[in-house]
């Protein structure tokens, strides 16, 4: 009697899992999608329309879950099980190459890149271009993502206030000083986000020492690289920004997005932000604000290369319906939908023949010329969080000077790498 009760109780959870996992393999004409957009976002609308058209054109039933930005985070654990809950998973290039492909969960998309875009002559690979294809490839060589949208950073400003834009950093500083003389605090900056505070140093560094030089710093186990004169130069430029009185009072004591709101309100002139900025601040921007952006000006005659993130889809190795998933990828890359990426979602498409929204047209031109860096290759997120970001915060907030910064970077980098054994 007692045994029987115990046995039936033990069987309960097993029965429950059996019910939950079965059933997905049978329905071939179904495409399950986990999207990184949330219901109501412009990007969601673009995708939803494409899914509807895809259903009509192919008869495949599309079941989308609008998961929001944590789609990949929630998806990864399912790779440990026999069945995955989606045939298409959306995310940025780093998530798909470093996490999804690194976990051996990603199907190689070489055949998708070789296929032609639905109803067009060019192949997917030609349409996407080599730079983004490289970014979609994991360090193990798996082509894990099909990107459709790119974002980068730019100096945003009100097109009505500045008819011309500075090309060199010196020109830019001159503009800043003029605005300051008029009693303005010209630079918006959300100091509560360490990643945003580090961008100045990074771009100065990339311009002065080149991408190779910049990328060599963080992995340097001795930490001595941070003592190079080029790093000091970059840090001194940040120090000059910090001490120049360009940022609004209390910019480091307000919660994001307070400072970006102030910028949109016309309280400061320039803001270095992602190309998604116009969409983010649109609800509270001052009426008539004409969003325009220019690329980071050149330093000592060299413009820093651009940091780029791509958004796109991957297909799990264990997908129940990979064929429908692949078909959708060639379908969504059609000009019609990519025009919507620019026109409806106000983002930049991977396609060179899709003009960007005027807000970011300058940046798109720079991207199409291909000066894209490889910031996505090295995974230095732990190092950045623990060593670089805290010190770069102090540098930008004027708590430490440039020389102190480089010295502490050298010491703390060495300590960091020592702790890794």
């Amino acid at each position, binding site marked *: 009697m007692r045994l029987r*009760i115990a046995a039936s109780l033990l069987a309960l959870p097993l029965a429950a899992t059996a019910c939950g996992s079965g059933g997905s393999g049978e329905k071939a004409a179904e495409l399950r999608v986990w999207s990184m957009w949330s219901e109501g976002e412009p990007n969601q609308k673009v995708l939803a329309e494409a899914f509807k058209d895809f259903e009509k054109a192919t008869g495949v039933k599309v079941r989308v879950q609008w998961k929001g930005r944590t789609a990949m985070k929630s998806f*990864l654990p399912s790779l440990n099980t026999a069945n995955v809950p989606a045939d298409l998973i959306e995310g940025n290039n780093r998530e798909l190459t*470093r996490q999804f492909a*690194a976990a051996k969960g990603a199907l190689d998309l070489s055949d998708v890149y070789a296929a032609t875009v639905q109803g067009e002559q060019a192949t997917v690979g030609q349409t996407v271009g080599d730079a983004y294809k490289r970014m979609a490839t994991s360090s193990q060589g798996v082509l894990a993502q099909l990107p459709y949208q790119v974002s980068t950073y730019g100096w945003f400003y009100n097109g009505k206030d500045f008819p011309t834009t500075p090309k060199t950093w010196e020109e830019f500083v001159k503009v800043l000083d003029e605005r300051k003389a008029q009693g303005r605090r010209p630079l918006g900056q959300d100091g509560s986000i360490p990643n945003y505070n580090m961008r100045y140093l990074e771009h100065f560094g990339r311009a002065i020492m080149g991408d190779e030089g910049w990328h060599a710093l963080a992995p340097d186990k001795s930490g001595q690289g941070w003592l190079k004169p080029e790093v000091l130069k970059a840090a001194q430029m940040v120090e000059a920004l910090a001490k120049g009185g360009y940022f609004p009072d209390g910019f480091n004591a307000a919660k994001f997005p*307070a400072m970006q709101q102030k910028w949109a309100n016309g309280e400061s002139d320039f803001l270095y932000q992602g190309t998604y900025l116009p969409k983010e601040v649109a609800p509270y921007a001052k009426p008539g604000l004409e969003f325009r952006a220019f690329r980071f000006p050149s330093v000592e005659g060299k413009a820093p290369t651009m940091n780029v993130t791509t958004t796109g889809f991957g297909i799990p190795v264990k997908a129940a319906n990979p064929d429908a998933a692949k078909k959708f990828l060639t379908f969504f890359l059609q000009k019609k939908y990519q025009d919507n990426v620019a026109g409806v979602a106000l983002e930049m498409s991977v396609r060179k023949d899709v003009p960007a929204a005027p807000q970011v047209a300058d940046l798109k031109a720079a991207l199409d010329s291909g000066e894209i860096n490889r910031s996505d290759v090295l995974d*230095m997120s*732990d190092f950045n969080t623990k060593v670089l970001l805290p010190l770069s915060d102090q540098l930008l907030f004027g*708590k430490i000077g440039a020389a102190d910064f480089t010295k502490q970077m050298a010491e703390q980098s060495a300590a960091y790498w020592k*702790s890794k054994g």
Partner: protein
Amino acid sequence: MTAVLERPPVKAAPRSRRGGSPFEAARRRMIGPFLLPALLVYALVMIVPSVITVWISFNEWAGVGAMEWAGLANYREMVADPVFGTSFANTMKILVLVGAAVFVIAFTLTMLLQDMVGRKFVRAVIFFPSLVPGLVIAILWGFLLDPDGLANSVLKSLGIAEPPLWLAPENMFTTVMAGMTWLAAGTYTVIFMAAADRIPRYFYEAAELDGAGPLTRFWHITLPLMWDVIGVCAVLWAIGALKTFEFVLVFAGATGSLPPTGLWTFSVYAYAGAFPSDGVPRYGIASAAAVLTMLLTVVLTILVRRVMGRREQATY
């Protein structure tokens, strides 16, 4: 009449040794089946995951794919990591400083409110912060404590020319601690007041006749008679403080980014390992931090019980 009681303990028959009548025996047989469901659930959702966490802490694991045995490497790395030192110091500050502030406030309010008219209403007001989720408070405080926020507007109108920058990096952790104090003080005050309410009035009346002031009455009557409750509260606080997480994360982090390392606690450290803002998850070190938190909780609980138990509980 008292045959059962007078019967000397029988040692011979095994059946009797297991205890009494056939009814008792039947009842005992049923304990197992009745206990089993709860035990199973507990094992499934508590014990098994805890054991797995300990196991993962000895491995390198990205959350998916194969685990790689790492021995004590995660623990070694954690101890050598200066950020872990900061997280440890912050957790201890919350445990000790915020804990002390919460208990002092709760004692003071208990003492003040004990004889107050309308204390039920006051108690409700004091308890209110505990009803609002910490997350909501953390978000609202961001606006309230902005350099141009309500708090500083009020201070400026009171004639303070340069009100503090509450959310500046150097003040942030103090602000976090103040927020946690405010959130927790109400809860403990209400628990203390409930404990104080159980104490019969005549003790106080007698003490008053003997000429005892409010402090003396608190020291000699209230405190000893609610000692057991204080002990439980101290344990609860220790456990809660070691697990401090969401308040810091929401108060200082933004969408998709972690708070600055100067504000990290044990739990934030573990979270940052498992969910880095932009990199490969490291469940090994996250689990190691969790295991350490668990161990510290056990040690602290035992310690607090010891310290609190040393004082004889008064029964009068």
